[in-house]
């Protein structure tokens, strides 16, 4: 059974935590999502396997990129009903500060949603939301229900 269809059938189409739990790579990263009303925040708790630079230490740029991409996709699925998981067409990542060995939080906004393609911006931060450690914008192919 397709995961998005299954969640819809169970009346949990907006249960993003259940969706994350079904994605092996999101489980591997240890990613979580918190919902307050119609706002969702993604969370990446720190763990040693996320480290890219052991001297600083700093979170790996790839893990940061993956977290930004997943944050974007989760927001997109929260806003839109899709048949399948959106496909990333491209993503452009700005690394703004080094990722310290603490929890990271993410928010995304769907800046434009067309019939087939959506534009999404995401930002992630640690101590202060106004001091993001990285930002991304990307395009995603959709399969609307």
């Amino acid at each position, binding site marked *: 059974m397709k995961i998005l269809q299954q969640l819809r059938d169970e009346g949990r189409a907006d249960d993003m935590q259940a969706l994350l739990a079904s994605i092996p790579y999101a489980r591997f990263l240890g990613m979580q999502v918190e919902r307050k009303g119609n706002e969702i925040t993604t969370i990446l708790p720190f763990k040693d396997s996320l480290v890219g630079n052991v001297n600083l230490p700093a*979170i790996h740029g790839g893990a940061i990129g993956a977290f930004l991409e997943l944050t974007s996709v989760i927001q997109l699925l929260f806003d839109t009903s899709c048949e399948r998981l959106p*496909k990333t067409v*491209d993503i452009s990542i700005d*690394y703004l500060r080094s990722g310290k060995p603490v929890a990271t939080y993410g928010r995304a906004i769907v800046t434009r949603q067309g019939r087939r393609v959506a534009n999404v911006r995401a930002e992630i931060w640690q101590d202060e939301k106004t001091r993001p450690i990285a930002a991304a914008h990307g395009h995603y192919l959709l399969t609307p229900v």
Partner: protein
Amino acid sequence: MNKDDLEHLPPHGEAIGMSLVSVVGRVCTVKVPYAEHLVGDPDTGIIHGGVITATLDNASGWAVRCHEDWATEMGMATLDLRIDYMRPAEPFKDLMVQAECYKLAKNIAFVRAVAYQDDIEDQVATSVAAFMLGTPNTPRADS
């Protein structure tokens, strides 16, 4: 810098299962074997784009350190990374990344990379990255 010096993997690279296959001139080749924990779509078994992002980022960083003008004591940090995804990676196949540092300037290094599986002409993704050079490699007092 030669292959043995580079081979020290960051913990995240190790967790994904990356390994450095070869260093030829300014070109680094990196391999990630297919693994269950890398899957991004449970319906298809296709690995997540984040795995490709991490591998492109890591291989690009290695390519900078392969450049003949790279000085070992220099620190560096990814400034930006732009990735185009051409096609999904086929399940159960290794992912390969080839990265080349085509310009190492005073402050910035420029790298392009390509992710593929069997055939480098049949690309899974391509990327361009810029790295800031001479960044501190020890924790900053104020952060």
